[in-house]
């Protein structure tokens, strides 16, 4: 990059939410006409940073210089006026309006101040869509009728309908097919050629290799690397930057792996369980006392698997057995009756009755135990809830308080107490430490291990790799709905798992036999992407070389910038 003043210079940005320091002095410098990639694990602060830039969050501290001047966008509209547009992962389009109406929403071409000129909006929209290489999208069509990829194009057209100089794209390729990704990259190439800067967020390292100019890496709310060259920096270095931790996790001791006697019979057996577009057929066995972890990114199918096992989603194929007896598919009640319990990802939205006391939240799944003919024995209910919350050391030690007054960690314990009280035998944990502050995590880990030691089987989903590795006995690594690797937790380490979930190179297992790995090197026309839905649990596509161990020489990929137009 030429030493001209950067288009954007964010310096020392801090932002705290209750209990969490999301950003802790982050710098981000973006030059005009570059593709600047923002990398980081879930929770590293990427979303918060781009929301600050987009005016959706106000920073607690730090400065933003835009084209050399200090600015403080107070709202998304203010950021738009400056020329900063953001395309979020969840597209913010109005489905019941037409393409043109969406593109010009809020700044419709008008005559005499208030008369909308739909013809002019439609013509301008058609011009923008042509520029984006999608002249086939009719500006008059309803956005709800378009495909996800087309909607993304409309979002970009909306950004370009303003005089935009910087576009932030939050995982734009997540919902796209390979050829659509190619078109996206072509559009990005055109934009940068015109001098527009792009801040590109993606989990896919190979994409960053293809289109990125520079990389900024966030970790635990800090920028650990600012403006690294995207194509030359070794993968190993990037992964190390993403994973090197400041926070120490404390995990409880595992039970001795080889207990005397034969291993117990599996309590939960999953066979061929699948859902179209979410995850490929899955086999899984869970024994009493065992914690099995599912590692994977958001969108890799982890939560969907858990919810399908639990009956909250109806499987397209396969079945779930508890003690060898098949569960009625798609029935939560059958699952609960058979002894399954779920601590869902969105605790407040999916698990807790926020207006109610801890007692009632704990007893809700076991009410028939405290009632005769529907009549509640509230004394027994209170006593049992108290015993269950005490066993988990829930604080405060008073289950009569409203559950909303509890900290995140204690709210999670309330959910666990619900299943403990129910006498559940298989516990499904989806991101159990989300929203739980660091200090309370170790305690929660100890609780989960303690439950396993009592004989519960635990299926754990987490996007925090250290959590899966530290807590689970066995780990299944997921990538885009496929199990790409299975191993004992102590045979894996964090860079290895991250490589697997990011699909950044080494194939899972022994060389990826039978996988859909053939895509081969970079720069090809179809783009090196994952298995793309075709079965196969072996290779993760894009396998360059056969790098063996995590410490192996980096696989420096040579890609020819943006593909030819």
């Amino acid at each position, binding site marked *: 990059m030429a030493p001209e003043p950067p288009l954007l210079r964010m310096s020392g940005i801090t932002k705290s939410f209750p209990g969490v320091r999301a950003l802790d002095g982050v710098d981000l410098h973006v030059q005009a006409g570059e593709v600047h990639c923002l990398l980081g694990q879930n929770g590293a602060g990427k979303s918060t940073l781009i929301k600050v830039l987009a005016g959706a969050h106000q920073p607690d501290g730090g400065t933003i210089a835009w084209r050399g001047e200090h600015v403080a966008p107070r709202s998304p509209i203010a950021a738009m006026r400056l020329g900063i547009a953001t395309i979020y992962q969840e597209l913010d389009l109005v489905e019941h309006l037409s393409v043109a109406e969406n593109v010009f929403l809020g700044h419709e071409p008008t005559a005499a101040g208030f008369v909308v000129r739909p013809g002019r909006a439609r013509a301008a929209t058609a011009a923008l869509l042509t520029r984006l290489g999608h002249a086939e999208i009719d500006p008059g069509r309803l956005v709800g009728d378009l495909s996800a990829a087309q909607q993304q194009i409309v979002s970009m057209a909306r950004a370009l309908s303003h005089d935009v100089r910087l576009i932030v794209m939050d995982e734009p390729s997540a919902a796209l097919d390979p050829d659509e990704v190619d078109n996206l990259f072509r559009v990005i190439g055109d934009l940068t050629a015109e001098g527009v800067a792009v801040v590109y967020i993606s989990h896919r390292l190979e994409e960053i290799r293809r289109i990125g100019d520079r990389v900024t890496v966030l970790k635990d709310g800090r920028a650990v690397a600012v403006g690294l060259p995207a194509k030359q920096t070794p993968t190993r270095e990037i992964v190390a930057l993403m994973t090197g931790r400041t926070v120490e996790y404390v995990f409880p001791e595992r039970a001795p792996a080889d207990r005397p006697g034969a291993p117990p019979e599996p309590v939960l057996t999953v066979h061929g369980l699948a859902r179209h577009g979410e995850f490929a057929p899955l086999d899984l066995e869970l024994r*009493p006392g065992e914690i099995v972890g599912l590692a994977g990114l958001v969108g890799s199918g982890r939560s969907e698997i858990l919810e399908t096992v*639990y009956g*909250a989603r109806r499987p397209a194929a396969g079945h779930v057995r508890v*003690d060898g007896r098949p569960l009625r598919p798609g029935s*939560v*009640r059958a*699952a*609960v*009756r*058979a*002894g399954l319990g*779920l601590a*869902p990802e969105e605790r407040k*939205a*999916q*698990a*807790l*009755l*926020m*207006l*109610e*006391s801890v007692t*009632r939240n704990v007893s*809700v*799944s*076991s*009410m*028939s*135990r405290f*009632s005769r003919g*529907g*009549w*509640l024995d*509230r*004394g*027994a209910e*209170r*006593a*049992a809830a*108290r*015993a*269950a919350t005490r*066993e988990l050391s829930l604080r405060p030690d*008073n289950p*009569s*308080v*409203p559950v909303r*007054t509890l900290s995140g960690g204690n709210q999670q314990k309330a959910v666990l107490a*619900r299943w*403990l*009280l*129910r*006498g*559940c*035998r298989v516990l499904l944990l989806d991101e159990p430490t989300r929203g739980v502050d660091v200090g309370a995590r170790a305690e929660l880990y100890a609780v989960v291990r303690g*439950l396993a030691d*009592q*004989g*519960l089987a635990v299926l754990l989903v987490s996007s925090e790799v250290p959590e899966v590795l530290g807590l689970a006995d066995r780990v299944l690594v997921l990538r885009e709905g496929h199990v790409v690797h299975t191993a004992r937790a102590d045979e894996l380490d964090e860079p290895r798992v991250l490589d697997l979930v990011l699909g950044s190179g080494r194939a899972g297992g022994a060389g990826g036999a039978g996988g859909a790995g053939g895509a081969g090197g970079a720069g090809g026309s179809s783009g090196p992407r994952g298995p793309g839905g075709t079965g196969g649990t072996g290779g993760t596509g894009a396998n360059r070389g056969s790098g063996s161990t995590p410490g192996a020489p980096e696989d420096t990929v040579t890609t020819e910038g943006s593909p030819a137009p």
Partner: protein
Amino acid sequence: MTQPASPARPVTEKSPPPDGAAGPWRALAARADLRTLSLLGVLAALAVIGGVTQPDAFLDTDNLQLILTQASVIGVVTVGMTFVIISGGIDLSVGAIVALASVWATTVATQEYGFAGILFTAVVVGLGCGLVNGLLIAYGGMVPFIATLAMLASGRGLALEITDGKTQMVTVDGVLRLGERDAYVLGVPPLVLVFAAVTVVGWLLLNRTTFGRRSVAVGGNAEAARLAGIDVRRQRLYLYLLSGLCCGIAAFLLVVLSGSGQNTNGNLYELDAIAAAIIGGTLLSGGRGTITGAVLGVLIFTTITNIFALNNLETAVQQIAKGAIIVAAVLVQRRASTT
């Protein structure tokens, strides 16, 4: 409960600890009481206004009996409505169900079966309408607002069809006698006793049974209730059945009170019942509500109507006053819940 032998060893019940009602719980109870007390305060203030403006007429035993009797019909409807709202739903069809049940129960054919025939028909028609509502909402996936709006329209239409717009006089002595002074128990009209019984049963159902808990859970967070293993759909069906049952009982009371069945019965009951539940502290979004508050809300509205009637004020003014009370009650509750 049939649950397999659990290695996790379900927590065994112990005797309740002596400090069962600790500080925060008491504070919560105190706040709930504050709401009830404020409603009682409003009722007392209304009584003072009534007593001052019409000292003779208002405090007369006959008038007090009249207020309670009038409150009975809408009160029974309100108990059912409160359950539905607590569960996050709404029942716009209550007035129409009352009308339909009252006219069906007073057709010549029904009256041939006497007292029991009238009571039975009113209750069964109410339950039937509730069943339709419940099936459409719980299993048909319809929005409660729409499903019960449709029931409102159809119910009124069917009531008109049955009566042809005529008033159907009750000829069964037993029914008529229930409304007369001779039937009063210790000065309390039987209708009021029914209202009181429904209130007590409703309170117990909400606060002391799994049914009540499930209703609150479904209204507070339907997804969480589902994932906790509650059959949310069946619970919703039961709730609309309950509302229909209350409408059937109310229809019978109305038949006793008026000695007739009319297709215009129960006009705008849905609004009165919703308003009473809301000023009684029931969240329209579900998850919280009290029977006590709702019944006090009914009594407040009935007393206002009575005072306005005694003072010969127009119904227009009365409606404005009701609207103002709803706004005031909700604003006060919002403030109370945010501080």
